[in-house]
């Protein structure tokens, strides 16, 4: 009982709700949602989105809260102990290891991404990426160099800046976790969440007052919300909506369970779960659709919004948005606001995801909080290192695929089966309503028992099928090209539709470009090392790049010569777009020299290393759990024996 009394507790209900909302609200709300909605049916996307929310988002949220409080009542803040309460079987605790190991792995790469936002907030504040006289900062190259995913060094000569911000971010997280639930996570949420909402409001006002661009905010809203009802017949759209619900609510991490473990018996779980969902949807649907895409529509024009939305979360947030913000007055202020907004959204999520790991060391290993925070911090720093140095090989994506995608569904499926079928739905329903004034509609009893598990299986199957189809499981080499000394060009290099010089378009151009890349990829794979080559080229008057010579790794040159590279550039629409100043000065008509770098990254050893790290962490927790429970059983047996002996004595 003394152990239970020592556990942390939430200081206030509002603090808990803000912390839970902060846990759920992340970068995905502001960047992933608009991209997914725009690409998958626009306004019609909301139909599968709401259906997914009702059929497994909201039900899983309630499962998480009920499971967490059930475990917390017995002093367990992490899922090994919680699952044992659901299933009184020695195997249960081993199933719960996913809810401790995967959050730790998730923290490795998520805090690294979080650190980009902090870094970019600093760069905005200091005006680092504002266009200077005589040159334009090329945001795509700026990001690639910051991450070290290319070997050009126009903006960042090495990893020093990246490491500095990653370290600051990890230390900030560990400090918050060290302060505990009430004085750390809850206090952070009470500051960060109102700030996040305020930043959102200021940015919405700013974006809706932008003018003078190539489009209007209404172009962006029209792109996002025009319903393409025909898209609803595509299973991809339904799976995309289900995936978005999964990512946005932070279900399947074991973190909401941990938050719930600090609740009291008379807390209203059902209403807390519903409020967490409501707050998350508020930020996602309203601010997620009113900021990034409308802003991009103003700057890039209506015809470009689709490409930007489809370019991925980080391209929207770290490349397109800075382009927009720096083109209008006040970039130092609004740019900082934008990246701090993303940082706060990520920060409140990462501390939430890491808390079950801290709770495991505190509750199960019986470590003091400071020691738990230190050991988690140490693993955190060590785990972030491969994310930084192997990002060029796709380490972050690999971590994300196993821990942040497949792992989530597997964990959620195990949890709902244990809750609804092993623990029995009747008991689960009772736990959910213990001390609750809000009554969950009875239909969810059956949804949770029958529909949610089936849907989770379908999502898992679909994602795995996609992974196989997209070669995600096979670590094929990455082939890319970059422009050297890019700041000297005032205009920008861009990709787009195949150039007229390619002579082909559409699928034919794509398949021909893929064949050229595959030839390079195959040779990198066969020779098993990174390969580089340097091309001397010329920007022609029409913007296309004419490659004159290619030198470098002889292995690479076996697969790619100057003509093939030029062909690849034309097929992928790689060209130079002069700035308006250059156009006015007539510079566009003058051919200019340009140097390109071709890179072939041999990814296999590094991606296998990531997989080994994940397996190693899972195994380490399994061994710890085995040792802890064995020790407990031995202590209990000794106590029972002593009691029996005491009873036997006259």
């Amino acid at each position, binding site marked *: 009982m003394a152990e239970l009394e020592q556990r942390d507790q939430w200081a206030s*209900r509002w603090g808990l709700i803000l912390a839970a909302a902060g846990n759920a609200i992340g970068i995905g709300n502001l960047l992933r949602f608009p991209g997914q909605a725009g690409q998958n049916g626009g306004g019609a996307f909301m139909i599968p989105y709401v259906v997914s929310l009702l059929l497994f988002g909201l039900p899983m949220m309630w499962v998480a809260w009920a499971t967490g409080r059930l475990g917390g009542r017995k002093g367990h803040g992490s899922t090994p102990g919680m699952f044992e309460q659901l299933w009184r079987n020695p195997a249960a605790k081993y199933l719960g290891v996913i809810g401790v190991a995967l959050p730790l792995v998730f923290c490795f790469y998520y805090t690294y991404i979080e650190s980009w936002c902090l870094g970019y907030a600093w760069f905005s504040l200091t005006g680092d990426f504002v266009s200077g006289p005589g040159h334009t900062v090329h945001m795509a190259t700026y990001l690639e160099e910051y991450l070290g995913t290319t070997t050009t060094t126009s903006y960042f000569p090495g990893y020093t800046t990246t490491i500095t911000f990653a370290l600051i971010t990890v230390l900030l997280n560990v400090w918050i976790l060290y302060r505990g639930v009430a004085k750390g996570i809850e206090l952070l949420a009470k500051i960060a969440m109102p700030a996040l909402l305020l930043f959102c409001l200021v940015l919405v006002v700013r974006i809706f007052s932008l003018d003078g661009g190539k489009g209007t905010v209404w172009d962006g809203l029209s792109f996002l919300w025009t319903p393409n009802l025909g898209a609803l017949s595509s299973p991809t759209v339904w799976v995309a909506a289900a995936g978005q619900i999964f990512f946005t609510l932070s279900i399947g991490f074991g973190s909401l369970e941990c938050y719930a473990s600090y609740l009291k*018996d008379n807390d209203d779980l059902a*209403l807390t779960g519903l409020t967490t969902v409501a707050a998350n949807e508020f930020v996602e649907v309203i601010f997620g659709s009113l900021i990034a895409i409308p802003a991009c529509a103003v700057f890039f024009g209506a015809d470009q919004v689709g490409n930007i939305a489809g370019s991925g979360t980080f391209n929207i947030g770290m490349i397109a948005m800075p382009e927009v913000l720096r083109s209008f007055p006040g970039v130092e202020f609004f740019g900082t606001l934008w990246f701090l907004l993303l940082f706060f959204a990520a920060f409140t999520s990462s501390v939430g995801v890491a808390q079950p790991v801290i709770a495991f060391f505190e509750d199960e290993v019986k470590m003091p909080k400071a020691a738990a925070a230190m050991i988690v911090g140490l693993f955190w720093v060590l785990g972030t290192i491969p994310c930084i140095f192997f990002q060029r090989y796709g380490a972050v994506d690999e971590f994300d695929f196993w821990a942040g995608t497949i792992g989530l569904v597997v964990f959620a499926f195990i949890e709902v089966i244990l809750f609804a079928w092993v623990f029995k739905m009747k008991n689960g329903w009772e736990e959910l309503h213990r*001390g609750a*004034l809000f009554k969950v509609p009875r239909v969810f009893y059956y949804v949770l028992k029958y529909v949610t598990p089936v849907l989770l299986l379908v999502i898992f199957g679909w994602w795995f099928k996609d992974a196989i189809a997209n070669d995600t499981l096979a670590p094929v080499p990455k082939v890319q090209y970059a422009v050297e000394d890019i700041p000297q060009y005032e205009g920008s290099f861009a990709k787009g539709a195949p150039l007229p010089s390619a002579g082909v378009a559409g699928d034919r151009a794509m398949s021909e470009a893929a064949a050229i890349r595959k030839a390079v990829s195959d040779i990198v794979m066969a020779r098993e090392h990174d390969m580089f080559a340097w091309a001397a080229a010329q920007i022609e008057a029409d913007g296309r790049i004419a490659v004159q010579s290619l030198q470098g790794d002889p292995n690479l040159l076996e697969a790619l010569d100057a003509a093939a590279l030029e062909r690849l550039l034309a097929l992928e629409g790689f060209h130079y777009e002069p700035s308006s100043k250059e156009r006015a000065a007539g510079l566009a008509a003058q051919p200019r020299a340009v140097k390109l770098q071709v890179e072939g990254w041999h990814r296999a050893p590094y991606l296998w290393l990531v997989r080994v790290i994940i397996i190693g962490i899972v195994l380490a927790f399994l061994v710890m759990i085995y040792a802890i429970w064995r020790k407990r059983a031995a202590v209990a047996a000794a106590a029972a024996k002593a009691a029996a002996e005491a009873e036997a004595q006259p």
Partner: protein
Amino acid sequence: MSIEPILFMCLTMGGVLGLNVLCIILWLRPNARHPPNDARAAAPDASDAPAKPAEP
């Protein structure tokens, strides 16, 4: 901008706002902040059932 996107946007955002207002109203109900410790809250939970034998 045609009427369809405006309609979908207003319906969705209205729904989300409505859900948030509903939650606020539910929290503001009397007893919502400190619900009574009723019999169920005090009752033992199903996890108190006898456990299977632990590992040696």
